[in-house]
């Protein structure tokens, strides 16, 4: 599991790859929260196109960031989930809270 975090416009783009489980969620959560403060952005885009596996630990990081940003008027977007990842996103109910797009470019085009 690897991730990169960068700012594009008013959006923090968090690109995840590999397997997202409890072995990485603590550091991922801390790094995203720190970047939110440092970059002063109000939205997050999780680019999931490189994710091969995600369980509820990974979903918990996404939902936690969503709750935090919604409280401040920001938003969380999802992009590029593969079928196996989309299945857990759907089953968890996250797709009823957040918008999901085929690619990161789709999201940036829309909100940029």
């Amino acid at each position: 599991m690897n991730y990169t975090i960068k700012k594009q416009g008013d959006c923090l783009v968090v690109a995840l790859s590999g397997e997202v489980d409890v072995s990485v969620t603590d550091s991922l959560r801390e790094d995203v929260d720190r970047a939110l403060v440092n970059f002063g952005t109000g939205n997050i885009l999780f680019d999931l196109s490189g994710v091969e596996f995600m369980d509820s630990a990974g979903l918990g990081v996404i939902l936690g960031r969503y709750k935090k940003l919604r409280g401040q008027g920001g938003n969380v977007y999802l992009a590029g989930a593969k079928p196996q990842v989309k299945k857990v996103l759907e089953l968890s109910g996250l797709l009823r809270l957040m918008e999901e797009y085929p690619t990161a470019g789709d999201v940036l085009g829309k909100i940029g």
Partner: protein
Amino acid sequence: MNKAVLEFSSRAENVAFARVAVAAFASQLDFTLSDLEEIKVAVSEAVTNAIVHGYGNKPENMVRLELTIQEEYLEIKVIDRGKGIDDVAKALEPAYSTDPERMGLGFSFMQSFMDRFAVDSQPGRGTRVIMSRKAGAPQKAAVPDQ
């Protein structure tokens, strides 16, 4: 009948090991790749619970998996000797978690992705999750009915 037992340190990095090992054992049956992905999620949730809740993230304990293939069935037992669950019915409720950073969906995912599921827990003594899935069986309804 084919049996395998895995026992490993209660460390977060072993969750991936458990997933891969179970998928390798399960692949002796006629599961599709999508079935194997679902089985991996169920295993990941149960093993994570043993490490995080059962053992409170202390790495020197052992998590035990017992795998059995009999005819078309894969049975998986995930066993810890950790703190146990006081109220199993409550723990099984979707979105119930004792940890605010977690989703409370672990047990729901196990039930969604496996054909049979049971939890047996004794406070102070540990927890045993028993789940099984039939190769080639259709996936159950997405919403767990527990």
